[in-house]
């Protein structure tokens, strides 16, 4: 069981908040930045889970308080950094392709979903129009 100091907890929390905020944007570039920041937040948390800062994970070179850092989270963070890096590159390529094809980098709506929505709206309007007609006549009488 390791505990987190307040400063680091604030940094990780801030990174997560920023990342999710950017992720909610409609511009793909900002979403990509959000993913990068979120990746940093997760990786930092992973490193922090191995113990307090300033103690190296090498025997014979203990930190100021004579403690060793746990090397396992560092190995995992390294793997995770490589993975997030690779995927960021892929995303960047896709954003660029979207920009090439569409001329902008906004997230677009699901066309088919829109269509089904309008079909439903029109059916409702038609039903409403049909049920309104007899009611109008009734009022006139």
């Amino acid at each position, binding site marked *: 069981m*390791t505990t987190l100091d307040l400063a680091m907890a604030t940094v990780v929390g801030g990174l997560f908040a920023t990342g999710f905020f950017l992720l909610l944007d409609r511009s793909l570039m900002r979403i990509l930045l959000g993913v990068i920041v979120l990746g940093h937040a*997760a990786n930092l948390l*992973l490193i922090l*889970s191995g113990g307090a800062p300033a103690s190296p994970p090498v025997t014979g070179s203990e930190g100021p308080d004579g403690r060793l850092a746990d090397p396992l*989270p560092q190995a995992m963070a390294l793997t995770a950094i490589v*993975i997030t890096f690779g995927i960021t590159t892929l*995303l960047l390529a*896709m954003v660029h392709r979207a920009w090439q*094809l569409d001329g902008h980098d906004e997230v677009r709506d*699901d066309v088919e979903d829109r269509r089904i929505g309008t079909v439903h709206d029109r059916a409702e309007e038609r039903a409403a129009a049909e049920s309104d007609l007899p009611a109008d006549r009734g009022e006139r009488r």
Partner: protein
Amino acid sequence: MTAWLLVAPVLLPVLVAALSFALSGSRITQQVLGVSVLTLTLTDAVVLLVLAQRDGPQAASMGGWPAPLGIALVADRLSALLLTVSLAVALAVLVFAIGQGNADFGESSPVAFHPAYLLLTAGVGMAFLAGDLFNLFVAFEMMLTASYVLLSLGVGSGRIRAGMTYTITSLTSSLLFLTAIALCYAATGTVNMADLGLRMTQAPDGVAATLSVLLLVVFGIKAAMVPLHFWLPDSYPTAPTPITAIFAALLTKVGVYAMVRTQTLIFPRDDVWLLLTIVAVLTLLVGVLGAIAQDDLNRLLSFVLVSHIGFMLFGLALFDEAGLTGTVLYTAHHIVVQAGLFLVSGIVVRLSGTASLASLTHRAPPPPVVAGLFMLPALALAGIPPTSGFVAKFVLLQAGGERSGWPVTVLIAAALLTSLLTLYAMTRVWRAVFSAGPDRPAPRREAGNVLMLAATVGIVGLGVAIAVGAGLLGEISEAAARDLVDPDGYREAVLGGGDG
């Protein structure tokens, strides 16, 4: 020996993927390589299944590091069974893809398809065999990265749009998974799942509950459980048929598998899980109601897929041996049935040139062979008696009947209603696509490419085999569920003497 058997489903496809990429000049070589390596891993998976069924869980530690520290690969009955079924489906879908690629593109089919496809199967295999959380994360990343490539292979702004949605959603879930791993490690000092199960009991209740729900959300996004399903019906239908089929069959099921594995092994509980019960009811109903509203054939099938994830959550929500038996059986059956339906839909769309049900009603119906190939998995999905779906649903409902309390009653009612509505959705497809009518041209004679048809027949045949061999499969599922409820055998295999 066992160690090699366990490594093979991961290592072989990765190595062959590299080879396939290097030899991308020759289409035939790529195809032969892909089919032969998948046949080989399928054989390997069958051997693992026999070993796991006979001797219990098989485990191996990689690189000479013992279990809690090193990377462990484990094959118990559940993972070996799902691995076997998945690889069989992956092989059939690859044959279908080769047929379609030859017919549609000839020599100009995309170079990256075969390597990406093999990496996808390697990722799926590793996810089933992973013994620790971090390895599971790496497996997910491998599988998802390959799937990002497959989904956005073709040009076209529709594909890119759908691909972005899919990639960003999956990526968010992966980063949350990484966060969960970090928190698990901070709380317990281990990421090995067998070890985590032991140490999580000493963690405070609040910490364990938070991690449990965080992992549920992570795998819930991947498994497309409502309300985390929005990305799926948006992105899957835009891909070419074989890719949609393999995604629908495998990716969501890997999410379900990971959910079952982590929740039973790390956070065991004694009673019905209310949260998951509610989620299962929502998934069942929202999915199937969404399916009824659709006009596009592939979108309809995608919504049905979401809905039927609810059946798998059903068994997990009950959290007992009978319920988990149902989940295992349902997952195995659904991999086959869903892949079969998407392949048939691919053949229909190719023949008629449209996926819209409204337009399909005016086109000539596909030949009777294709209609038969659609009917078998469609009936299995709805759970009509002699099919595989009936057996799986029967086990689930029976397990539900043994538990008391109103949430379970609601869940059973929702499951029955969903089966009925699934049948309605399938009837709609049948009427629009296959039924003859006075104002419709006569059915077509030609059924398209032979390889595509053969692959579909293979998958549908596998579904029939599951129904026929339900006794044997039920036995394996029951034993798998017993292992899940009482994971001592799993722990012993991983933590003690797992030197391979």
